[in-house]
């Protein structure tokens, strides 16, 4: 199909798609007037029944915990895919990626970048841990906190060189953290069954509302997801940086 024909085909389909959008919107109320019995129900039970003050986290890790398990494994599968696709292969058409100038001095980044990155490093770790651990209380949780945590190694990379970055994030350790984080979710679900509930049913003591240990399984799942997300992001950075370093050496 040539480009003009394809574009013409697109405009016809886009018009039909716009019509489909229009028809599917016809039952929607104007912005701010939609109703959802499910959402209102969640809002009314999250504090009395689950002792969780962030209703979004309650939906993610407790009420619809099984769906989030699926989401988490989409993430796991994509990270796995990135690692598989970027791995070194012997039949690479670009030739072998041996370091041909071993022991050369790699120039450091500028002092301004290094100072800024190092100053930000520890606050970012603290902030990430705070977001992960307060998921059941305030907006946050494993997904968001995991991403914040994964910026810490990236800041370290900005302040140092690639070999040093690799030294503080050993791929084996990161891979293990990724696997532990992913399996923790299923493990917690299994523990709930062992304690006499359904898979991922919140059977642990719910604790006092508004404290760090409230919410039963939710706080634990948050930690597992936080570990998985941060390890996954760091792992992706590692394989991409490896690729970049190889390209530079050629």
């Amino acid at each position, binding site marked *: 199909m040539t480009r003009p024909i394809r574009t013409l085909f697109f405009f016809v389909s886009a018009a039909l798609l716009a019509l489909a959008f229009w028809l599917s919107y016809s039952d929607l109320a104007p912005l701010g007037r939609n109703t959802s019995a499910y959402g209102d129900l969640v*809002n009314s039970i999250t504090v009395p029944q689950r002792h969780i003050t962030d209703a979004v986290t309650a*939906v993610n890790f407790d009420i619809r915990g099984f769906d989030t398990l699926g989401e988490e494994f989409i993430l796991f599968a994509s990270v796995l895919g990135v690692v598989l696709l970027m791995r070194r292969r012997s039949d690479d058409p670009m030739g072998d990626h041996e370091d041909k100038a071993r022991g050369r001095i790699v120039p450091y980044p500028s002092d301004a970048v290094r100072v800024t990155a190092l100053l930000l490093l520890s606050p970012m770790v603290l902030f990430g841990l705070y977001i992960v651990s307060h998921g059941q209380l305030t907006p946050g949780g494993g997904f968001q906190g995991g991403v914040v945590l994964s910026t810490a190694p990236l800041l370290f990379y900005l302040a140092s060189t690639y070999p040093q970055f690799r030294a503080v994030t050993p791929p084996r350790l990161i891979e293990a953290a990724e696997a532990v984080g992913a399996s923790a979710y299923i493990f917690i679900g299994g523990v709930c069954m062992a304690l006499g509930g359904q898979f991922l049913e919140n059977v642990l003591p719910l604790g006092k509302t508004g404290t760090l240990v409230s919410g039963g399984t939710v706080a634990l799942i948050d930690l597992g997801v936080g570990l998985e997300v941060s390890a996954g992001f760091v792992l992706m950075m590692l394989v991409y940086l490896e690729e970049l370093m190889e390209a530079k050496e050629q």
Partner: protein
Amino acid sequence: MSYLPYAVAAWLFIIGLYGVITSRNLVHLCICVSVIQSSSYVLLLAIGYRTGRPAPVYADIPAGTPAVDPVVQALMLTDVVVEVTVMALLLALAVQVHKRLGTLDPDRLRKLRG
């Protein structure tokens, strides 16, 4: 005005699709896919919004106060993080295509096969 977010969602979807179809670079194509995906964020948040109600966080408001719909927010939240990893996967595919075929133009991929 009250239907604007729905229109924005439809527009983002269609303009993203236009980008995918007319793209001449795989990296550009990946970004167009993320534009399509962001239309779902706009639509979900627009559907969940309730005029005058607070966020569904009961840390500082009395328990049981009617708030905006938390279900669609939960749907969106996990998707944002998952989208980034899926994007990394697509870009890894683009890197492999460039390595093996020496081009990022989707139109030239077919000619180079074989």
